[in-house]
């Protein structure tokens, strides 16, 4: 077995291909966190008073909180005074009005990441909001979407152009009191994406946000807010990368989704933050709160995530099923290699009658990676006739990694059913040999086996992104691009 383990390990040492740094001048806040930092960020963004007040409340609340210790992850204490909370590439003007005003270096950066911002170069049917460190640098297809009444813009623009919507929905799903990192984010978030789909409108293209951390020692704290009015639908994708650095960087984002009657929101994430090197140095701490509220009847929120990056991932995209017959879904692939740690899963809270939720989680651990699934299914007394199905599978590559499953099930009425299935398997040397005997290389064999294992989740991703995700998984598992 030892030789076989070695063969596997050889192939999981990966190269991170997005580790480059863009040389741009940036406008940074001084290190450290205080009320002044919060005021400075709010001032820089020219925010209305209500927002500054909200930030300050969040900050004061955060001061009373303690960092959570319950996740199954281990890391040295974060020095919150040694982080830069705001960093923006310097702009000649007040903020670019069109792509022509965006620093060509930034456009080049996104191009290198495979995200061309020039609209004519875009994949047909995908609009992008590009967030670089603390600010959104460009949003494409704004005009075309605007004709349909869809608002898709940076969070900062939304604050300026639609303050009433922000006031109404900001913090309505994830209040700043929710948890330590949500409170921190609420105090210092700098930008993000906003999306509003009016009543009855089916968004004709994929909307996506691409997050990039560039500056050293900065934290990225962005917020995404999606509101889908009655009978509307939208599919949303989020991607993330960061340069290769020896120090750890903090990414603490909040995503809120509200779905009204019969609205459908599909949120897909391909998370590929820098994971640290093969010795476990550096990498992003990805501490994220994502939650959707199925507010209306028959509404549906579906989370699909492919998590291959970050030194530590701490993330539980959840759905509150408040509307009767609403549907929540969670599909996840989480890969940990080298010294990566992931504690991820979901929470499905059934409140409305006849609500349904599905959880499919596929964990893959390689190297010394530690992968935990943590899932909570809560069926309230009011949620009669509700159903949940959970399936949590773990795949181990090699024998130094670990997989852990923590399901929490709570059912408070008798007419509901909750099903939980779990499995742990090792990638078989037999399977690899079988593939090689048919002429496939070991790398291709591992890729194929792992991709086969993830199939149920990839199927949920929009077509082009499924292809991307497969490639990404391949790259993460190999030494080179396939």
């Amino acid at each position, binding site marked *: 077995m030892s*030789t*076989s383990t070695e*063969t596997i390990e050889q192939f999981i040492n990966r190269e991170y291909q997005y580790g480059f740094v863009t040389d741009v001048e940036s406008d940074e806040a001084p290190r450290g966190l205080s009320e002044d930092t919060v005021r400075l960020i709010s001032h820089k963004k020219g925010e209305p008073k209500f927002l500054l007040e909200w930030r300050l409340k969040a900050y004061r609340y955060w001061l009373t909180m303690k960092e959570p210790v319950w996740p199954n992850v281990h890391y040295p204490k974060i020095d919150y005074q040694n982080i830069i909370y705001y960093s923006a590439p310097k702009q000649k003007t007040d903020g670019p009005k069109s792509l022509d005003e965006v620093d060509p270096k930034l456009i080049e950066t996104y191009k290198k990441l495979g995200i061309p911002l020039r609209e004519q170069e875009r994949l047909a049917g995908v609009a992008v909001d590009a967030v670089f460190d603390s600010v959104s640098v460009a949003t494409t297809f704004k005009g075309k979407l605007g004709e349909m009444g869809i608002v898709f813009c940076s969070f900062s623009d939304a604050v300026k152009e639609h303050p009433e919507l922000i006031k109404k929905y900001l913090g309505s799903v994830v209040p700043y009191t929710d948890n330590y990192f949500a409170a921190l984010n609420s105090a210092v978030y700098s930008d993000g994406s906003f999306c509003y789909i009016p009543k009855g409108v089916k968004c004709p293209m994929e909307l996506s946000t691409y997050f990039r951390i560039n500056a050293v020692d900065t934290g990225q704290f962005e917020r995404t807010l999606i509101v889908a009015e009655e009978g509307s639908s939208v599919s949303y994708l989020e991607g993330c990368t960061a340069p290769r650095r020896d120090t750890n960087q903090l990414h603490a984002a909040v995503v809120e989704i509200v779905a009204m009657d019969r609205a459908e929101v599909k949120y897909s994430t391909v998370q590929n933050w820098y994971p640290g090197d093969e010795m476990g140095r550096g990498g992003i701490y990805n501490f994220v709160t994502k939650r959707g509220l199925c507010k209306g009847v028959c509404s549906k929120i579906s989370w699909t995530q492919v998590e291959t990056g970050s030194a530590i991932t701490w993330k539980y995209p959840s759905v509150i099923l408040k509307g009767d017959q609403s549907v929540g879904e969670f599909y996840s692939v989480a890969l940990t290699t080298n010294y990566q740690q992931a504690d991820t899963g979901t929470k499905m809270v059934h409140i409305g009658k006849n609500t349904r939720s599905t959880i499919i989680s596929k964990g893959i651990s390689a190297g010394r990676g530690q992968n935990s699934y943590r899932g909570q299914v809560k069926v309230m007394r009011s949620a009669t006739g509700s159903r949940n199905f959970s399936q949590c599978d773990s795949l181990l590559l090699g024998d130094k990694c670990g997989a852990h499953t923590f399901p929490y099930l709570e059912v408070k009425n008798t007419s509901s059913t909750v099903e939980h299935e779990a499995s742990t398997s090792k990638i*078989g*040397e*037999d*399977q690899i*040999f*079988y*593939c*090689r*005997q*048919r*002429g*496939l*290389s*070991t790398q*291709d064999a591992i890729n*194929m*086996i792992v*991709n*086969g*294992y*993830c*199939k*149920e989740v990839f199927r949920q991703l929009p077509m082009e992104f499924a292809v991307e995700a497969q490639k990404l998984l391949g790259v993460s598992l190999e030494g080179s691009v396939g």
Partner: protein
Amino acid sequence: MLEIKNLHAQVEGKKILKGLDLTIQPGEVHAIMGPNGSGKSTLAQVLAGRNEYEVTEGEVLYNGHNLLDLEPEERAREGVFLAFQYPVEIPGVNSTYFLKAAFNEVRKHRGEPELDALDFLSLVKEKMKVLELPQSLLNRPVNEGFSGGEKKRNEIFQMAVLEPKLAILDETDSGLDIDALRLVAEGVNKLKRPDNSQLIITHYQRLLDYIVPDFVHVLYDGKIIKTGGKRLALDLEERGYDWLLHEYRAQTPSQQPSLAGAR
């Protein structure tokens, strides 16, 4: 085609092959028989390049080259095919997709252009007729939930698509019903060409009624102790292995392990 000289191999310190000699010429069909645990599958695995099986002595020439120097996938691309005694399941990986990847590896290796999905599909349809394999199997993940017999037929189907030069069939007949046995055997026969060879491991004469071997070898305790024509298989069917072992022990009076469980 294949020349095995004084092959010794062990697994986890246990010696299994103990000086095996075998030569196969192009166009020949060889059958290997022998009691359970005598080393038949080990021979197959060694030829396919499974690294748990360590070769301690001897050599294997394949078309004049040292086969043992090649990685398993290189052997496969050079035309060595093993129909496994126990084919594994690969959940979630579509059979057609898998086979196309394998097929194109072989093409690439030969410097031939890869086939696209459409061309490959028509090739597959062609080959499927030969084996009367239900189309539905190919739309499913590799071997997942296949019955024992379906797995074996799928192996031979893969062989039909990949057109190997040296095909090693490890107990492909076991688990097949009577009709499937005939279909598989006919399929194998149709794949026979003057420039390729087949090494067929089996326990039963009935397969050899369909696939007529040029030579039959008996493997016992890691060595070939008897070689004959197709007649030998009939003798074995009738009389079992005991008489052979007596003969063998008489020739080599040294200590021989007893033969528990041999038929």
